């Protein structure tokens, strides 16, 4: 017998593999496949309090071993999400991590309250890469603002809270410690790296929004380092992500100290990647005679 189930807050996930928010959309079609039912959790695209139409094109651009995106969190808003999208997503039977984002701590809390009405969610993930209206930075770039949002949500929600951290900071460990102290049940790391690419012929940004977020294998070594440093300092579980394409990549995150791992951008290239990652983790554990995933998590030689 092999135990690969993991725990965040009081929620048990059957295995450690999920998908990064924004890479599986809300489309029923993506979730209909029998392969999706094998995942440890699914994390649909971030929803906001009000509907958002997203950024003007061009929204994506290919880069070496990755991509830049500035989609602009196009989504129908939380009310329509709860009424129309969630019932279908829940039908998959896979634990659901609902990713939310808002423009203020109050709005984050309001959204968490709305989700209290829904039963059977696995966790709420806070997408903190949103503008912090008081200061000219993202919430996720400010330890105090990060803590404020988490405390506000923790005060009202009945679900475990996962804080998704931005790598665009001087010290991600400091933000992680602040998030943990504020009551976060887990950390998702990392979100995309602010980036740009220029069309030299037209001397314009290749992205309609001027800048965007870099993701894909290009960022993986940085993400692994950040997870490794943070895991050594916090007690809460980490969902590691950043350029995972196969089980070897996922194993790096787990060995670095992540409890779960998410496939993100590579879903766009190989929609079967999350399942291959899961199979590969099982095979690795078997080869190394491991019976519990906890033998793997954080097993890096220090």
């Amino acid at each position, binding site marked *: 017998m092999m135990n690969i189930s993991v725990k965040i807050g009081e929620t048990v996930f059957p295995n450690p593999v999920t998908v990064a928010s924004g890479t599986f*959309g809300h*489309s029923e079609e*993506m979730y209909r496949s029998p392969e999706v039912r094998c995942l440890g959790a699914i994390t649909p695209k971030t929803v906001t309090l009000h509907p958002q139409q997203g950024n003007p094109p061009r929204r994506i651009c290919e880069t070496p071993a990755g991509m830049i995106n500035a989609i602009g969190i196009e989504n129908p808003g939380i009310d329509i999400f709860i009424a129309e999208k969630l019932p279908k997503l829940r039908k998959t039977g896979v634990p659901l991590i609902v990713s939310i984002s808002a423009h203020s701590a109050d709005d984050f809390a309001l959204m968490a309250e709305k989700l209290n009405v829904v039963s059977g969610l696995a966790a709420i993930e806070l997408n903190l890469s949103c503008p912090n209206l008081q200061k000219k930075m993202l919430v996720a770039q400010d330890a105090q603002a990060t803590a404020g949002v988490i405390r506000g949500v923790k005060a009202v929600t009945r679900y475990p809270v996962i804080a998704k951290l931005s790598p665009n900071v001087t010290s991600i460990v400091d933000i992680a410690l602040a998030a943990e102290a504020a009551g976060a049940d887990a950390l998702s790391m990392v979100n995309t790296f602010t980036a740009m690419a220029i069309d030299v012929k037209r001397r314009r940004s290749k992205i309609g929004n001027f800048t965007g977020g870099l993701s894909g294998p290009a960022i993986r070594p940085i993400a692994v380092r950040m997870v490794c440093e943070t895991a050594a300092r916090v007690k809460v579980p980490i969902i590691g992500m950043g350029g995972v394409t196969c089980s070897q990549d996922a194993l790096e995150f787990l060995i670095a100290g992540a409890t779960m791992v998410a496939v993100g951008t590579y879903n766009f290239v190989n929609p079967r990647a999350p399942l291959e990652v899961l199979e590969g983790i099982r095979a690795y554990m078997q080869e190394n005679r491991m019976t519990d995933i906890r033998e793997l998590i954080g097993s890096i030689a220090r």
Partner: protein
Amino acid sequence: MSHILKTFPVVALEKVSDAYFRLAFEAPVLAKAVQPGQFIHIKVSEGWEPFFRRPFSVYRAQDGVVEILFEAVGRGSRLLTLKKKGDTLDILGPLGTPFTLPPAGVKKIVFIAGGVGVAPFMLFSDRIKAHKAEKLLLYGGRSRAHTFPMTAFKKNGFRVLTATDDGSVGVKGRVSDLFSAVAAAPSARIYTCGPRPMMGAVQAFARGHGLWGEASCEEVMACGLGACLGCSIPTAHGYRTVCHDGPVFDLNELVF
């Protein structure tokens, strides 16, 4: 996914003109499933360069063989020109919303294509071969290099009119110079695929004559499945994904 994700062997690669290539691979399941206007998403190399798959309209699908028509304009398509018989291609498809097939009563069917945008119309013409309507293909290309003998269209009952920028084939000018051939017939159906300015001209023409139309659009794509929302374009109903809501849209709803 309800789509097919599999590797298929290349059976032929051929140059059909100085600019265009035709790539054929054996894929009976795809050939059976694909509808005109749908596309397939091809991983053109094994590693991460280029990173995204590349979307191609299906040009033909018969006898278990699927074909695409493409121009080697970028990194992805240039790599495809190096494929040899026996190589395998990792393909996801068929994807996207197909063209609406013309009902039996339609009197006139007009395809208006620019450049390699002609690709989906070959499969479409195969599928409506038996349709009794008057059938017309208006084709615009840059020069002789961007045209090829459209005998297969003719075999499928299409009259083919060509315009080239330099006059090397057909009329010298643009495909819009051929619009006069579409005499106002209220039940005429217009289907178009090509550069955006061309499709904008087709939209203006169709609106002016009150004609029904559909257009197949192109955009840089990542997932091809409607998940990433990366290929969204503005429409009368807000942003819509080219890969999932399209690539075929109601001509009137597009914003050029």
